[in-house]
C-alpha cells in the first residue's frame, strides 16, 4: 500500500464537554508529525458540526475531512465505519487514531478489519521507533503488564487511545486549517441499525469522588463477608468505600463503588487500599490521592510501590486492627 505520512484523528465530538479525547490525541499527533512529517488531519462526520471543525483546527488539526449531511446527524456505527474506511482507502493515511470511548472502541475494530490492518486497543502512550514506526503502548494481561506493539507492514497503523492520556494543546483560534468537505459516496450502504431513542445521562457526582478518606478494597479481602468489615472501618473514619472490578463483579458491593477507569476517579486526602494489586485501570483513577496506605500480603504489588505507607500483612487482620484501635481512640 502506498501511503503518505498523514496522521488522522477521528473527531469524536459527542459528549464534548465531558470527553476531550479528540483534542488530546490531536496534541500528540502534532508532536509525532513534527518528527515524521505529514499532515495532522481530523475526520468529522455529522450535521451542522462547524463548531467542532473549528475546535479541531484551533487544537492542532491542519486539515479536516468533513462529511456534513443530515443523514449523519446521529452517531451511526455502521455508516461512520463505512465512511472512515472509504476515506482511508481514498487518501491512504500512515496512521489512524481513535479515542477509546465506547463508540471508538466499537468502531475502530470494524474499520481496521475493513482496511485489513492491525489495531491496538486502549493505548496509554504512543512513541516512535528509530524507523519512524508508531510504537503503540497498551496495557495487557488485565493491566498488570504493558506491551509495546507495532504494525510493521499494513497501513494505516491504527490504535485507540485512552481518554486522559495526552494533554490537549492550548487553543489557537487564529490557526488556519484546510477543510475538505465531501459529498456522501453514492454507494454508501443503507444502515442496518436504527436509533429508537437516546437520552443523555451524564454521570452524577458521587460522594466518593469528593471524600477526604476513601477505603478501597480488592480481591485480597477474600469474601463478601470480610469485605463488609471495610464499611465498619469507613463508619469510624467518616470515609467512603471503593472497590476494584473483581469485587464489583463478585457482587461483594454495588457497581457504584467501582474506582478506576471504568468507574470513579477519587482524590482523597488519605486512601486506604486493602488487598489490591494495583492494575493500571484501577490506579489511573487514584493518582490524585494525597496520601496512600496500602495493605497487601505481597510487598511487590504495584499498589504497594505507589503507597506512602506499605503494610505487608493480611488485609482483613489490619482492617480489624485499625477498627479496634479507632474504637479505643475515639472513646474519649
Amino acid at each position, binding site marked *: 500500500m502506498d501511503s503518505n505520512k498523514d496522521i488522522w484523528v477521528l473527531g469524536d465530538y459527542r459528549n464534548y464537554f465531558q470527553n476531550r479525547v479528540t483534542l488530546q490525541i490531536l496534541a500528540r499527533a502534532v508532536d509525532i508529525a513534527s518528527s515524521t512529517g505529514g499532515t495532522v488531519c481530523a475526520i468529522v462526520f455529522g450535521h451542522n458540526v462547524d463548531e467542532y471543525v473549528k475546535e479541531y483546527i484551533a487544537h492542532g488539526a491542519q486539515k479536516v475531512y468533513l462529511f456534513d449531511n443530515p443523514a449523519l446527524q446521529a452517531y451511526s456505527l455502521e455508516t461512520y465505519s463505512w465512511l472512515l474506511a472509504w476515506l482511508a482507502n481514498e487518501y491512504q493515511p500512515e496512521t489512524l487514531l481513535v479515542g477509546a470511548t*465506547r463508540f471508538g472502541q466499537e468502531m475502530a475494530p470494524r474499520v481496521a478489519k475493513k482496511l485489513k490492518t492491525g489495531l491496538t486497543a486502549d493505548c496509554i502512550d504512543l512513541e516512535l521507533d528509530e524507523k519512524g514506526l508508531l510504537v503503540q503502548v497498551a496495557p495487557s494481561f488485565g493491566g498488570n503488564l504493558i506491551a509495546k506493539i507495532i504494525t510493521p507492514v499494513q497501513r494505516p497503523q491504527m490504535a485507540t487511545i485512552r481518554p486522559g492520556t495526552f494533554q490537549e494543546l492550548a487553543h489557537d483560534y487564529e490557526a488556519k486549517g484546510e477543510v475538505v468537505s465531501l459529498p456522501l459516496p453514492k454507494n454508501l450502504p443503507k444502515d442496518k441499525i436504527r436509533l429508537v431513542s437516546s437520552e*443523555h445521562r451524564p454521570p452524577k457526582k458521587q460522594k466518593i469522588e469528593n471524600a477526604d478518606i476513601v477505603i478501597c478494597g480488592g480481591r485480597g479481602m477474600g469474601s463478601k463477608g470480610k469485605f463488609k468489615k471495610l464499611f465498619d472501618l469507613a463508619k469510624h473514619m467518616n470515609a467512603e468505600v471503593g472497590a476494584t472490578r473483581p469485587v464489583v463483579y463478585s457482587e461483594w458491593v454495588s457497581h457504584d463503588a467501582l474506582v478506576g477507569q471504568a468507574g470513579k476517579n477519587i482524590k482523597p486526602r488519605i486512601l486506604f487500599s486493602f488487598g489490591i494489586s494495583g492494575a493500571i485501570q484501577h490506579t489511573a483513577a487514584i493518582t490524585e490521592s494525597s496520601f496512600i496506605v496500602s495493605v497487601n500480603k505481597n510487598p511487590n504489588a504495584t499498589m504497594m510501590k505507589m503507597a506512602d505507607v*506499605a503494610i505487608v500483612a493480611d488485609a482483613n487482620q489490619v482492617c480489624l*486492627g485499625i477498627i479496634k484501635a479507632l474504637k479505643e*481512640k*475515639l472513646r474519649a
Partner: protein
Amino acid sequence: MVSQLPWDSKTGILKRELAQAMMDPASRRALEAALQIKEKQSAHICAITMGPPMAEEILHQAKALGADEGVLLTDQRMAGADTFLTSQILATFIQREKSELHLVLCGSQTSDSETAQVGPQLAQDLDIPSLGYVSLVEVKEKTVRVHRHVDDFVEIMEMDLPGLITIDLSAYNPRYLALEGVEQAFENPDIRIVNAKKLGLDDNFNALKDSPTRIIEVFSPTTQKESRVLKGSVKKIVDLLFEDYGKVISGAMGKDLKTHEHGEDQ
C-alpha cells in the same frame, strides 16, 4: 507477579493454555443472554471457542448450562492469533457451517486480553451489523431490539438480523452451574473439534506469522515512590501507623484521636 503470569516473556505471547480452563466472565454473560432468549422462543444455541485443546472443558460447561452444541476450533497453527485472526478464524467456521445463523452473542471483553475487538471484528468478517455493550436483548422475527448505556447515553436501538451483539459486563448475571450438570456433560462428550485443515484454512496459515500487529516488548509498570514499609504483628503495625501518621489520619477524619492511650489499655 510477572513470572506467575501465563505469559512467555521471550515471545510475548499469552500462554492461554496455562490459564485455567474457565469460561471468561464476559462470555458467560453472553451465554446467559442466549439461554434467556431460548427460554422465551425456540432457538438452537451453538457455543464456539477457539483455543488450546483444554478449552474443551469450557464447552462442557456451556453444554451443562444449556447450550445445544459445542465446537472447539483448535490447532497449533492458530496459537498466538491476535484479535484480527481470532475473529477471522471464528468467522470462517461460522460462514462454512452456520450460514443460517441469526444472532451472534459475544462478551464485551475477555478478562485476559481485554481488547473488546473480537466481537466487532467478527461482525465485520461476517458482514453483519453489530452493537456492543448491550444490557437487554429482545429478539424479534427479523430484527433485534437492544438497550445499552454507552458514553453517557442511554440508547434503544433496532438492528436487522443476522447481527452480532456483545453483552455488557453489568448485564445478564450468569446462572450458577451445578456440578452434576458438568458431570453429565462429561459423560456425554460430543464436542466437535475442528482443526485448521478441517476449517479449510490455507496450508500456509500461521497465526503468529500472519498477525498484522507485533508485540516488541512487554514490561511491568514501575513506580518510583519511596514507601515506608511496615511489617510484623498486626498490633505493632497498627500502633506504628497511628503513632507516626495519626495526625494525617485525624486531620482527614475531622475528628480528634486520643494518643498514647494504647499502652495503658493493654
